[in-house]
């Protein structure tokens, strides 16, 4: 005799999905919906009267030159920091992947940076890159005025890019190393026996085989460079000088929290979300085609 509680296909499916749906709804859809509502109103900081303004918030943001400057800064930051973090991590991972003495030590050392909290990291780099103390002071002595992140926007941008890439090199490194180690040794050994050099082996065998990882990291790095850069910018440059490092996510913070302009910040968050979705679609449409999944 069979003793089994039976559910219809749908019932059991929904039953298992409910806890997750509740979580997603509470922590994603509800706040996101709230943000959409706020972006269409003018919120008084202390609550009370909220005025429906339709798309006015979006109009005034998009008409603001500072906002376009902030988009340009974010795109520049994303492109350069993602590029740096991925290329450096890939080079380091390739080097560590080879059977070298002490490669275990390298691995540990290279994985470390990702474990450091953004504020601590930013504080360290603020000190390292200060124009009048530390290493850059010596460079400035030799070449006066070379490094001036306090007034030179490009120098300030370089500072935050260096700090951010440094952190993500560690993160990317873990994935690249894992991907490289998953490649069967026999493939590489066979190629070596056929007489191909290190570079040739990398481009013809290793690189194509790790393209899924490269693609994954590209998507993650770009997304994170839009969202995770906040702490570094806040501590190193506060968005300055003259808005040079006022990335979109930082502008949302300073308008929303410091400026108490909740509606403007909500509208900006929605634009940022749309931009990230757009970038992700573009990547899946145009770059994923070149990815070889085994």
């Amino acid at each position, binding site marked *: 005799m069979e003793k089994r509680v039976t559910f219809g296909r749908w019932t059991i499916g929904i039953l298992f999905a409910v806890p997750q749906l509740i979580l997603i709804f509470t922590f994603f859809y509800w706040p996101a919906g709230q943000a959409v509502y706020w972006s269409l109103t*003018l*919120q*008084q*900081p*202390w*609550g*009370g*009267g909220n*005025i429906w*303004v339709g798309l006015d918030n979006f109009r*005034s943001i998009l008409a*603001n030159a*500072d906002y376009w400057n902030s988009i340009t800064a974010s795109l520049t930051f994303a492109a350069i920091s993602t590029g740096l973090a991925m290329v450096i991590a890939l080079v380091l991972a390739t080097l560590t992947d080879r059977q070298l003495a002490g490669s275990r030590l390298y691995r540990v050392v290279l994985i470390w940076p990702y474990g450091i909290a953004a504020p601590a990291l930013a504080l360290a780099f*603020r*000190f390292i890159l*200060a*124009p*009048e*103390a*530390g290493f850059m*002071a010596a460079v400035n002595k030799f070449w006066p005025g070379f490094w001036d*992140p*306090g*007034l*030179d*926007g490009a120098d300030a941008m370089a500072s935050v890019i260096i700090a951010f890439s440094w952190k993500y090199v560690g993160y990317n490194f873990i994935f690249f190393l894992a991907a490289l180690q998953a490649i069967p040794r026999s493939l590489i050994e066979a190629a070596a026996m056929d007489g191909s050099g290190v570079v040739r082996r990398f481009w013809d065998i290793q690189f194509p085989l790790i393209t899924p990882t490269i693609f994954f990291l590209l998507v993650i790095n770009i997304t994170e460079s839009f969202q995770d850069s906040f702490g570094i910018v806040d501590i*190193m*440059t*506060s968005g*300055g*000088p*003259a*808005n040079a490092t006022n990335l979109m996510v930082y502008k949302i913070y*300073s*308008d929303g*929290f*410091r*400026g*108490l*302009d909740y509606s*403007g910040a909500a509208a900006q968050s929605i634009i940022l979300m749309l931009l990230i979705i757009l970038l992700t679609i573009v990547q899946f449409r145009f770059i994923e085609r070149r990815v070889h999944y085994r």
Partner: protein
Amino acid sequence: MTIIKRGLAALAAGALSSALAAPASAEPVKFDFWFGLSGDLARVVDTLCKNFNASQSDYEVVCTSQGNYDATLQNTIAAFRAGKQPTVVQVYDVGTATMMLSGAYKPADKLMEENGYKIDYSDYFPGIARYYATSKGEMLSFPFNSSTALMYWNKDAFAKIGKTEAPKTWEDVGADLKALKDAGYDCPMAINISGNESWQLMEQFSAIHNQPIATKNNGYDGLDARLEVNKTKFVQYVTDLKKWYDAGLIKIKSKDLGQDMVQAFATGTCQVIMSSVGDHGTVGKTKKEGMNWDVAELPVYAGTERKNSLVGGASLWVLSGKSDAEYKGAAAFLNFIHDPKTALFWSTNTGYIPVTKSGFEYMKSSGFYDKAPYKGREVAIASLTASEPTEITRGIRLGNFTQIRAEFGTQMQAIFANKESVQDGIDALVKNGDAILDRFQQTYPNKTLP
């Protein structure tokens, strides 16, 4: 073993119940006070709170630092929206207009009156009181930590150029900085051009020169006030600062770059700075061994009739929606802070000034200003009371002023990096600042400042 444990537990329970059974009326009414000071200053506030709790047995204030002024306001708003606000909160000077329109406070003067405290409001220095009072003179919040900007100057460096006094006019400053440079000082004067320095560079300068920051008497007369610093003496001032910066007479110092102004002055790297009297204690404690220094009022341009400088710092607001018992406690607390003896304790341990005339007199008569580390702080009072406040020098009442200050920093950085001319930069400050004011006005339609 278990017997001992059980016995101990029984003892503890007995002690507890007898403690609870003790006269129920002795249980003090607790209320929260949130403030924005941190570090050394937060410890002084904690002591102040302990002193208040020890001074009576009816109330107990629970004091919590929120880290800084910005965070205090943000957290308070979040708490208020959730119905969990503190009873008393410290709000910085530029948050005043935002607070006034919030509808979330209980006017301080009403609170005191309802609870039977008689406060003589004319005892407050007028420059301090009017910053926090309505246009009709009602005190909505109580001044707490007050300061103003002073010029700190290195006497040793000035002695090298044959000067025994601080420069009184900006013309003299120019000449002195040049002389200091020629005497071999690499950094005659340090400034910072972040948003917060709007306070020294734009707000204090405008006040002592009786120049407006905005129309409608700096916003006191309506939410439709708009900036007008691009048409005042402020333009000349920024032009001069930029000229001196280009000539190497002024260096920019900030924490982001490794050393802030106060450190640069205290270590003898830079010879002149403009900073809050609140830093007087820090300079005294951290100065280079044997360095001679003093403070003076901020200079004015030749031919200017000096007016009072503006108060900086923060005031205490009592929030709405609390119980009568908590309000009784808050009133007792404000009364305690108002006491001249508390003023003496507070000013001795911080660099802040007493906010009442009686507090100042009490400190003077106790010989406070004659003692070495505190000598010079009376200059701040002189600066704040240089004149009866005018329509312009009583304060600044502009919405979202934090954002306007940030815009000030942005434009100053663009000017000093030669991205914009002085006039263009200040015009941009006015244009963007007006957009911020416009937005504030839209957020509060049909409302007027009290």
